[in-house]
């Protein structure tokens, strides 16, 4: 996926955003004041939908795009847009180590105080988080940690299932639970670069 | 049957007079109205019974309740003293005695007893309508003019407050 900059949020092309003409005079015409024709008009619309859908229920149309857009949730799932902010995850490099350098910016900016980091150093003088704890019972999915991270080490994933728990203790996620391979997060990382302007200084 | 309905009517009327909660009093008045309409049914006057329920129980008492609720009348503390209850009973007895003696004075002992199925079609809508618009046309019209005057008066009173 690639994102062109002539799209604004909501993915409406800018050249199509024209102001609609609003009817300013709220004075109703006599035909509208009679009220009954307007009721009949409204009921014609709903009845048309009713009949079309009833026929669709009894004889489901073959191959056609269906009229009813309900998603049968647990069986069907929507494809989630890349802008969706799901569970925050730590990016795992190809060599299996975490990208995070334990700078503590996310810990500092987190408005819900959900993140706590203990930093350390590897043998090759590389900083890494010894523990990285994310309290999912406090996380508000704001995405500030992702925005502030200088190393693209924490991003919001598209996971939204299984986040509810009966016990608060289970909702404190350690580092091992947060790590996700970078290959799975490519789209989101690219998107983050686009929207936060990180492409200017990232390699 | 008459004694059951009459007993309930008198009992609920007594509750209505003695009860201190306005809503309970109004509800027992509704029960009285329903019992009255039951009495009309016993007398074969189905139309009057239906009208009794529609007009009194259905419309006027709803207005009563509405006003009671809107004004939010609180129940007053304390019970009636024995002295007052005695006075009330004395009044009721006196009024009842006067009423009975008046009836006796006017009608004597020849109050018309109900005869089983004597009058054909008595109490039906047709019979009531015919009597109302032939024999009792003048009283009917006078009553309607009186009510119209009352409505106009009510509108004027209400309007004066708005302006």
């Amino acid at each position: 996926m690639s994102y062109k900059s002539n799209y604004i949020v909501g993915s409406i092309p800018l050249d199509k955003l024209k102001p609609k003409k609003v009817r300013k005079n709220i004075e109703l015409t006599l035909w509208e004041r009679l009220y009954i024709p307007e009721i009949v008009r409204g009921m014609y619309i709903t009845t048309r939908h009713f009949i079309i859908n009833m026929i669709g229920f009894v004889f489901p149309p073959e191959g056609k795009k269906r009229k009813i857009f309900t998603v049968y949730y647990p069986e069907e799932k929507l494809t989630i847009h890349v802008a969706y902010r799901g569970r925050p995850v730590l990016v795992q490099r190809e060599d299996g180590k975490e990208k995070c350098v334990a700078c503590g910016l996310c810990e500092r900016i987190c408005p819900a105080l959900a993140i706590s980091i203990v930093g350390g150093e590897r043998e090759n003088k590389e900083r890494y988080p010894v523990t990285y704890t994310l309290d999912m019972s406090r996380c508000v999915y704001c995405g500030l940690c992702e925005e502030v991270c200088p190393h693209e080490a924490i991003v919001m994933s598209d996971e939204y299932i299984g986040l509810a728990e009966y016990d608060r203790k289970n909702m404190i996620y350690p580092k091992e639970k947060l790590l996700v391979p970078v290959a799975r997060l490519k789209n989101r990382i690219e998107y983050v670069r686009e929207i936060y302007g990180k492409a200017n200084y990232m390699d | 049957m008459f004694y059951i309905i009459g007993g309930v009517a008198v009992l609920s009327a007594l509750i209505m007079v003695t009860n201190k909660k306005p809503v309970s009093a109004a509800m027992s008045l509704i029960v009285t109205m329903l019992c009255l309409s039951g009495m009309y049914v016993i007398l074969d006057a189905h139309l009057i019974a239906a009208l009794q329920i529609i007009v009194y129980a259905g419309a006027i008492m709803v207005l009563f309740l509405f006003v009671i609720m809107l004004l939010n009348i609180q129940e007053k503390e304390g019970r009636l003293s024995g002295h007052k209850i005695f006075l009330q009973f004395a009044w009721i007895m006196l009024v009842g005695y006067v009423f009975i003696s008046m009836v006796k004075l006017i009608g004597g002992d020849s109050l018309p007893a109900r005869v089983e199925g004597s009058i054909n079609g008595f109490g039906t809508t047709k019979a009531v309508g015919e009597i109302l618009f032939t024999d009792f046309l003048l009283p009917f019209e006078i009553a309607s003019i009186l009510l119209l005057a009352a409505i106009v008066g009510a509108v004027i009173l209400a309007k004066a407050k708005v302006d």
Partner: protein
Amino acid sequence: MIADLIEAIAKILFVFGVNMGFFAPILGWVERKQSAVMQDRVGANRADIFGFTLIGLLHPLSDTIKLITKEDFIPAGANKLFHTLAPFISLTPALITFAVVPFGGQYEIFGRRINLVVADLDVGILFVFAFASLATYGTVLAGWSSNNNWSFLGGLRAAAQMLSYEVAMGLSIIGIIMVYGSLKLTEIGAMQTDFFKWGIFLQPIGFILFLTCAIAENKRAPFDIPEAETEIVAGYFTEYSSMKFIMFWMGEFLEMVTISGIITTLFLGAWHLPFISDERLLSLFGFAGPNGSIIMLMMANIATFFGKIIFMIWFQMTIRWTLPRFRYDQIMKLGWKIMLPISLINIFITGLVVLLK
């Protein structure tokens, strides 16, 4: 004597069974499913027994079980007597009024005249109005006795609205009474044999007025300000739970059935099929012998009547899911300034036409 008793009991059981056993539980499902279909949704379809969902038909069952096993809650400071009494008061009129609605004509089977109505009263339609007006108390008392501001507001709104629309409803029906010259619902029904003698053709304005007032009396959208969810939680039954909540629910649905029955009897030709007279049907069923053909005719008439009722219920539900709610002042204005004068004019014109004919 015994045969009369059996006939009466059979009729009562039939009406009661159809209302309580068929309409009351199934209308909840119809309401949900029809609204879903109208709005391009799927609707309730998850309750199942061993994996069979029956297009959501088991939802009323699960709802009933859920509500019965819930706690029956009476709020602190509520008037216990009236709080308990109110649901009964609102349910009973809806059940009783169906007694005067005829669901078929008069038939002679095995030498017996069978009149397919529970109580053929002389006052007929006035009986309906009498008990419909008593239904107001259920709502008003429920609102008052709950000791809750939202309920109280709902009760007040219900009292004002139902009182206002009772007047217009009573006047809107006078036109049809003048045309047919009877208060008896059975006679009015029997007179509508010809398709173009149906009440809806003789009294189109009366039909619209009566339908509007009836929906307003039933407190359904667009006249549902007594229970407006977006304004006053659930209105007069905010504080109700368990069985009493079901009773309000059922009362509303049964009132809808009763309204449909009355409209069918008065305006939609009662138990008569359009363009096919009863004699024609009788000759069609001639193969079943004299008694058998009359029984079949009776069945056909009952089926026609309930078919029309189901159509009217569908129509009311379509209105309910099409129109938005009125504001309180709009409802009052509509009731007193528009419906009342129009119904008076309707009476006047009808009287002129009846007089000149």
